[in-house]
């Protein structure tokens, strides 16, 4: 399991995470929601060890990864798969080479075995026969699927998804969500997903956590988060335009 405790991070004078806590159970799909610029991606970068906190810990199965360096951190990362927001596919390689890359670099599998696994993963994400294409030649939705195939090819225990459906049409959003759900059922990895897709994301999440101004203000099963009495959670879920409380509202043209 992953336990985030008292995580603080500031950039220059701007605090982004303000002592946030979150537990992610093994095998669940945890979706982190929240407004843009609210620190979701920063949190994810702490979970995968790309950023170090100013204070607090990120514990993965009892190991505080914020204290690890070099090879020790790499050993934890070998259990990870990460789907980046833009896919982060290597544009100098074909689709198949992208998916094969982690296997070629991190394992001693024979080429025929790697080819077999790559074909299998491409088939699972519905991209059979697309292996020879360059990432620049395929659509946004396909790129996301290639990124998912690459993240899963090493059969990781924990998979992180950073807004895996951003910029896709509603049908593709559902396709990707169902793909993630199907792969999760099959491989039982722990999934940590940052997403904006409301209400679609409630369909696939085991639990949802809302990050607001650097702390988790609500966490629980989707139905509990939907029924939350917290006005900020309700405002976010309904997509209301933010308005200041009546007493603080400024009259146009009048100085406060």
């Amino acid at each position: 399991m992953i336990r985030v405790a008292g995580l603080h991070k500031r950039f220059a004078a701007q605090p982004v995470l303000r002592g946030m806590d979150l537990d992610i159970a093994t095998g669940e799909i945890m979706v982190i929601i929240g407004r843009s610029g609210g620190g979701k991606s920063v949190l994810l970068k702490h979970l995968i060890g790309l950023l170090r906190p100013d204070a607090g810990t990120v514990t993965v199965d009892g190991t505080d990864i914020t204290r690890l360096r070099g090879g020790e951190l790499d050993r934890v990362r070998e259990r990870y798969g990460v789907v980046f927001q833009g896919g982060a596919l290597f544009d100098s390689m074909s689709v198949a080479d992208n998916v094969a890359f982690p296997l070629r670099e991190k394992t001693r599998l024979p080429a025929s075995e790697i080819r077999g696994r790559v074909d299998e993963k491409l088939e699972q994400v519905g991209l059979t026969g697309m292996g020879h294409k360059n990432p620049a030649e395929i659509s946004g939705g396909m790129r996301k699927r290639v990124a998912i195939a690459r993240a899963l090819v090493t059969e990781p225990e924990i998979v992180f998804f950073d807004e895996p459906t951003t910029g896709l049409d509603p049908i593709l959003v559902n396709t990707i969500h169902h793909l993630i759900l199907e792969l999760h059922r099959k491989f039982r990895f722990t999934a940590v997903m940052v997403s904006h897709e409301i209400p679609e994301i409630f369909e696939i999440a085991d639990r949802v956590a809302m990050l607001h101004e650097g702390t988790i203000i609500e966490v629980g099963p989707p139905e509990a988060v939907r029924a939350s009495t917290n006005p900020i959670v309700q405002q976010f879920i309904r997509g209301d335009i933010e308005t200041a409380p009546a007493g603080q509202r400024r009259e146009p043209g009048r100085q406060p």
Partner: protein
Amino acid sequence: MFSSPTPEMWPAPLRPIAALGRISLDGVSALGRFGRFFGQAVGYVVIPPFKIGRLRDRIHFIGFRSLTIVILTGAFTGMVLGLQIFLTLSRFGSEAYLGPAVALSLIRELGPVLCAVFVTGLAGSALTAEIGIMKITEQIDALQVMALNPMRYLVSPAVLAGVITFPLLTAIFDVVGIMGGYLVGVELLGLSPGTYFGEMKTFVTMSDLMTGYWKAISFGIIVPWVCTYKGFHCGHGAEGVARATTQAVVLTSILILVWDYFLGSVLP
């Protein structure tokens, strides 16, 4: 990482001093990062596992792809040298020394320097842009979370490829340049071929060749080092990559000239 007060937090009369201190500290820490980056790059050249495939790719990227421009510029540099030196020497009736004059200028100075500057414009800028784009599209982050070291994968092979290819490219530049000088001096201006090459053997020594060789090797380190560093530390978006590429080319060109002067003054 330490944080010190910003100049605005000091009393007004002390602010210029605080700002000077801030600039100095920023400069020193940037220099430190630059040095540490080089240390890591060299470290991963000697510590296994080695990325032979990446090295081959970088040799192709820096070396093979620069061949045409090196041959073309080498030929014209030699021809210009041949013409100008012939015109100067003919005033003193010493045209016979055209061969050694062209060869020495190329081997000791112009070959390594011009070759390095042209390769910077061609391959160095491409290195910066490639790594910069990889950074802004999270490809470098992707390498890191795959437990692969981006320095080992992207920087060390480029530095080693520079050390291997620069002396070879410089040698090609020198040879083509000498032939360019021959074309002008012998074929166009009527010097005898025996004089052109014969005098060269007398005047060009092994130490001249070694001077050029050491220069080429050191430029082969400087160019990939600066260009990959700038790519790794580029700003955000297309503008960040564009600025990093410009800075890489300018900084590398300046360093080449400064280092050339330094080496020229210490080497025999």
